[in-house]
Every structure is written in structure tokens, then in C-alpha cells.
């Protein structure tokens, strides 16, 4: 008589699953942010790394604390709070006082994410709202840019005239000053928020995410293409517009946030075009030099409607008299 086994696990098919899980996806995003962090440390110094670590620690701590208070499962293991922390750090100037950064982390994790129900439930990108809150609440410190000798000569020249403001390429463009070369812009030898400066490093991270199938190219490509096309329409240099400010960081890492962007490919293309459109409208017509975060936030709000608009229809024969028979 063969040996019998009578206490087997019964579960619904499928009994196998793809290797990617939420934590591995978030880990890939963190890995993809490393090149931009490296450039940031090179350009701004070790303070950049300190700021990144602080923001990650604050975000993870707030996530842990708020879930504990609300008597919910501990979710810091999914690494989504760490991603929010690092992306928020990328969105602030390197010399921002640490306590202000902590305020941004609190708003991102507690107010925007956990009060709406945690991962997957928030309607807006936590890092973006954190950045906007800081930008409005601490306007001065959020626009005080570090300048040093690693940056383009054009930026140093401007800094001699005006050491505190106006030294980001978009500010310089608005003020009609001589701009850094496109190569310097692309590499990131400029001032700005600590993680947004290097288009090259951000693109490298984006390619990693696309190769790993973490993100689809739909949003970054449509976002960047729209910015480029509208630059030409407005008579601006598209390379400069793509490399300046937060476009690369936004298009690759923030507009692609799964939770707050559409779920279908066609929806994602509409979303990306919208982000690019509002970014350029704000840059050209509004009183702010930069519009990426407002553009993405606006599109976040439209996401449920885009999803409904681009709803898939089930596979079925064409109704009456079509190709069915």
C-alpha cells in the first residue's frame, strides 16, 4: 500500500505566480534612483546623502507609527514609504533644514497616504503633495539653491550677482540670463532640487525600470514628447526644457506612480500628454518658473476619469451581423 498524505494544502489556482511582488517592485525603484543620487552627492556633497537618508527614515518611521496608532498591519516592509522618502528628498533643495523635510515627510505619509487608507488608496502622489506643501509653506528655504564650483560657469556667474535666488536654469531663463550649455544641463552640473538635476542619471534609472518591466514607457514617453513638442511650439529649446527643472524626475519617477496614474496604456498616454501640457503651460504662462508637480497633481486628480474613459471592453464578437458568423 502506498503512503497516503491526507493533510495537503487546498488553495485556488493558479498555484504559481510571477516573481515580482510589491516589495521587489519598490526595491527596483530605489535601485533606479541610485544613479541620480550619486550625481547629487557628486554635485552637492555628502549633505545630499544625509538628506536622502533622513527623508527615508522619516517616511518609514511615520508609516510605522501611524499604522501602529491606527492598529493596522505594519507595512514598512513593502518599501513604498522608503520610495516616497527618497523621491521627496529628490524634490527639495539640499540645504533645506532637516525639520522642514520632516514636515514634508509627515504630510506625504500621514496626510496624503495613510489617512486615505494606505498604499493603493491615495488619490495623489504623496511625494508631490509633500513637495507642494513645503514649496508653499516654506517658500524661501525651498528656493534657496546651493551653488558650488562643480556646477556650470553660467550658474556661478549668476550667483555672483544674486547668491540666493534665480540660479536655477529655469529661473535664469525667466530672468533672461546666459544659460548653461545643453551638455551641462544633461549631465546635471547645475543647481536645483537635489535629485532632479541630472537628466542623464534619471534616464539611466528610467531605462532600468523599463527593462525590468516595472514601468511601461507610455507615461514617460508621452510626457517628455509633449514637453518637447510644446517647446518647439512656444519657440523654446526642447533639450533645455527637457533637462531643466523636474521634468525628467517627474516623467520617469513621479508621474509613473501606479496608484495615482491610469491603469490602461491608452489612459497612460493621455495622462502623460496632460502632464506635459500643464507643465509647459505653467512654465510659459504662470507666475511659477516650474510646473511639473502641479501638472502631475492635476493629472492625479483626473486619473479616475481617465480610467473610466479608457475602460477596456471584453473580448466578444461584434454585435449583430458583424464578423461573428
Amino acid at each position: 500500500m502506498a503512503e497516503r498524505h491526507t493533510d495537503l494544502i487546498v488553495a485556488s489556482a493558479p498555484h504559481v505566480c510571477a516573481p515580482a511582488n510589491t516589495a521587489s517592485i519598490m526595491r527596483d525603484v530605489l535601485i533606479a534612483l541610485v544613479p541620480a543620487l550619486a550625481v547629487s552627492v557628486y554635485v552637492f556633497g555628502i549633505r545630499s546623502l544625509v538628506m536622502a537618508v533622513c527623508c527615508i527614515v522619516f517616511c518609514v518611521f511615520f508609516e510605522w507609527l501611524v499604522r501602529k496608532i491606527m492598529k493596522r498591519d505594519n507595512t514598512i516592509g513593502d518599501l513604498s514609504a522608503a520610495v516616497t522618502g527618497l523621491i521627496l528628498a529628490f524634490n527639495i533643495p539640499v540645504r533645506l533644514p532637516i525639520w522642514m523635510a520632516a514636515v514634508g515627510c509627515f504630510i506625504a505619509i500621514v496626510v496624503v497616504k495613510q489617512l486615505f487608507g494606505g498604499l493603493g488608496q491615495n488619490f495623489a502622489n504623496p511625494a508631490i503633495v509633500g513637495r507642494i506643501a513645503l514649496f508653499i509653506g516654506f517658500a524661501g528655504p525651498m528656493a534657496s539653491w546651493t551653488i558650488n564650483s562643480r556646477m556650470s560657469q553660467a550658474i556661478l556667474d549668476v550667483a555672483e550677482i544674486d547668491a540666493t535666488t534665480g540660479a536655477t536654469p529655469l529661473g535664469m531663463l525667466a530672468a533672461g540670463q546666459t544659460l548653461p550649455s545643453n551638455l551641462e544641463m544633461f549631465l546635471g552640473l547645475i543647481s536645483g532640487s537635489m535629485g532632479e538635476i541630472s537628466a542623464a542619471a534619471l534616464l539611466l534609472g528610467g531605462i532600468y525600470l523599463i527593462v525590468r518591466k516595472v514601468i511601461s514607457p507610455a507615461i514617460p514617453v508621452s510626457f517628455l514628447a509633449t514637453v518637447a513638442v510644446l517647446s518647439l511650439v512656444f519657440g523654446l529649446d526642447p533639450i533645455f526644457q527637457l533637462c531643466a527643472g523636474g521634468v525628467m524626475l517627474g516623467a520617469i519617477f513621479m508621474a509613473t506612480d501606479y496608484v495615482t496614474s491610469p491603469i490602461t496604456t491608452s489612459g497612460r498616454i493621455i495622462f502623460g500628454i496632460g502632464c506635459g501640457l500643464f507643465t509647459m503651460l505653467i512654465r510659459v504662462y504662470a507666475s511659477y518658473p516650474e510646473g511639473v508637480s502641479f501638472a502631475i497633481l492635476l493629472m492625479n486628480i483626473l486619473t479616475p476619469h481617465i480610467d473610466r474613459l479608457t475602460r477596456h471592453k471584453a473580448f466578444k464578437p461584434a454585435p449583430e451581423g458583424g464578423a461573428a458568423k
Partner: protein
Amino acid sequence: MGLTKRLSGVHVDHRKNTAGMPIIPMPVPEKVYIPMSMHIGAPCKPLVKAGDTVKVGQLIGDTDARIGAPIHSSVSGTVEAVIQGMTQLGKTDTSIVIKTDGKQELADTVVPPEINSFEDFIKAARDSGVVGLGGASFPMGAKLNIKPGTVDYLVINGAECEPYITVDHAVMLTYTRDIVDGIKAIMKWLQIPNTIIGIEGNKPDAIKAFNDVLAGDASIKVHELRQIYPQGAERVIIYECTGRKVSYGMLPLNAGCIVANVSSVLKLQHYLKTGLPLVSKYITVDGNIVVHPQNVEVPVGTMICDVIEFCGGLKEEPKKIVLGGPMMGRAIPRDDLAVMKANSAILCFNGAFAGQRKETACISCGRCVAACPMGLMPAKISRAFRDKDVEMLKEYEVLYCMDCGSCAYVCPARKPLNFEFRQAKAMVMEASKK
């Protein structure tokens, strides 16, 4: 989009560890337990009682119902009892317990059927005891009982898109000519002008074997399917082979098609040729703890634990045993249950493989939406199901889900999506009754 749209799916590791292995006949076990309900439709009534002597191929269970398939003894021996007990389908049913004598003598009734008309052919298809061996277990006699001349495509399913399973592959290589003969018989009596044999591209030798046998026959074609799960799902293979769409609420017949699995056609042909009905099954025994993974021919009614023992037993304590492939197969609570006609694989896994996966929150990544071959939006359906929102479930067309599990396979939050959808479908059906 539009006309050129190809159906989605998922890339699953093939894990065809037993590919190229011959089918080894397993010696008859001491006892077999033959369930009276192994097919869709009415269960059979036992025609034998304790103490009766039976032979291989002897009719031991039958039904008058239109949808049903007779059941034959897979062994020669003595009926020990007619019992009520749990079957692998998870319900209590009648089974005939036969103590084998090891002689495997054929019943006198095992003679090739004489076929002179469509009615004879349908009777033979029914008497063969064959059911849909791809897993659906729909009785062949009922499937083929259509008005001759009303179907333009016979689609033969040789996709075998589930991981691990290789018996259909082995069957296609070993019995190519028999399968073609079976196809021709069906085409002849049902007056079907065209046949398309769909085979996934990972089996080029099977495609070649058919092309060699078919050389020059314009009415039977081999179609190479993409290597993506679930190419073998009925609606998918019909679309891939003929371009016709069959969806919820339709039968392949509505699109002028009949679909049959290669093994089903082979078993039918064996009956037409020899008169031996379906009494044994070709089964892949694999997983990650089987000592000798292989393809075996098993008498129907053999206990699953006996089959595992024949394959050298297990290297460690099993935690999960799956009948069929890992994408759509059924996990059974215990292995002292009988092999049924539609089983194609016994897969045994240890705790590391079977470990319960922790479900986390949906992050709307869209992988399920991209994976669904039926073009549904599983993430949205899941949310509607959680909210018990029947109107949303209808709007997102949950009834068109065919339970292939592609969405749950790719879900990084490990949500049991298709499991939820089965319940969601029941909710929608219930609501529409009111």
C-alpha cells in the same frame, strides 16, 4: 488595437521537465476505485454489484441522459463493493471498488464498432466513454452530436500551454497518425471541411510530425501558436486558429467551430480502431519533489498515491498536490483519491513551493489589465467585488472571465483575483435571477 489585436496572456516558465519522455504503462494496482461521475452531465448508475467479475473495457456504469458518458472497467478482477465516498471533485459520490486479478483480460464487448452512418458514429463516440481530456470533461458523444454540415472548423487543441504537462506532446509524437485518422473520421461523419491543429511553438517536433503525416492534405492544417499562456483556452485557440470570437454565453458551435483536445481525439480513434473504450489515462507526474518525474499510462480509478509510488515516491513531505497544470489545476486535500478520465497531470510540491502567499494592497500597477486575454480589467473588478457592487461587476463584464488565472499569476500584491471573480460571477448571476 482593432482588427490586428492579439490576445494577451502571461509568460509562465514552461518547466516541461518530462518533455521527450516516453509514456510508461503503469502496472495495475491492487485495487481501483472508479467514480461514477467523471464528466460534465448526469452521473452514471453502477451496472455491477459486489462479487461480480469484470474485465477490461466492460461497461460498469451508464446513464440515459443526453449529456453523459458511459464508464468502463479499467481492470480485470472482482467487484469488491459499491461505495459512497469523496472523489477528487470534493463531493461524495458513488464509486465501484474493483480488486484486480492482474490478468487484464479484455471483455468480449471490446470489438471495433461498425459504423455506416452518422448515427452509428455518434453512438460510437458515446460508447467510447471519451470526455474532453483537456480538463473540461465534456462527453464526446454529446459534443459531436450536431447537425452534420453545420460546422466549418474542427479545431484540435495541442497547445498544452500549462507548465509541467507534457503528455499531449508525447501523444502527438507517438500517435500522430492515429490522431490524424481520428480527425478524418470526425470530419467525414460531421461533414466538417476544415481542421486546424493548434500547437504551441515550443513543440516544433510535434508540428513537424503532423506536417509530415499530413503532407499535401489541404483540409487539415497545423497552426503554430505563440508561446504564451493561455493559448490552449478554448476561446483563445478558436480565435488564434480561425479568427472567430467565442465569448461568454456562446458555444464554439455558435461560431461554427468544434474544439477537441488531441488526447480526446486519440482515445476516440483507439475506440474506433479497436473497440477499447477510455479505460486508461496518460498522465504527467512531476512537481518539485517527485523522485522520478515521468509520463505514465494509468488505469482510470487508480489511487493518486499509487501513481506517485510508481514514480519512485516523494523526496520530502508534500504540502500541495495539484491535478492538472499549476495555472488552472485543482489542489486536492488528500492523495488517496482516484484518478479520473480528465486528469492530465499529478504535480507534487513541498512546503517551500506551496507556502501561503501574503496578500497585500492593490497598487493599480495594471499588470492584470495587460495580462487578461479576455480584455477585462481585473483590478477594477476586484475593487467592485470588495464593495459588493453588482452594477460595477456588470459594467466591468466579470461574466466574460474564463478563470484562466493570468491576472492572479502576475499580481504583485498576490491577490487571488480569479478566485474572487468566481464568487463575483455567482453574485451577478444571483442578482440577475431576481
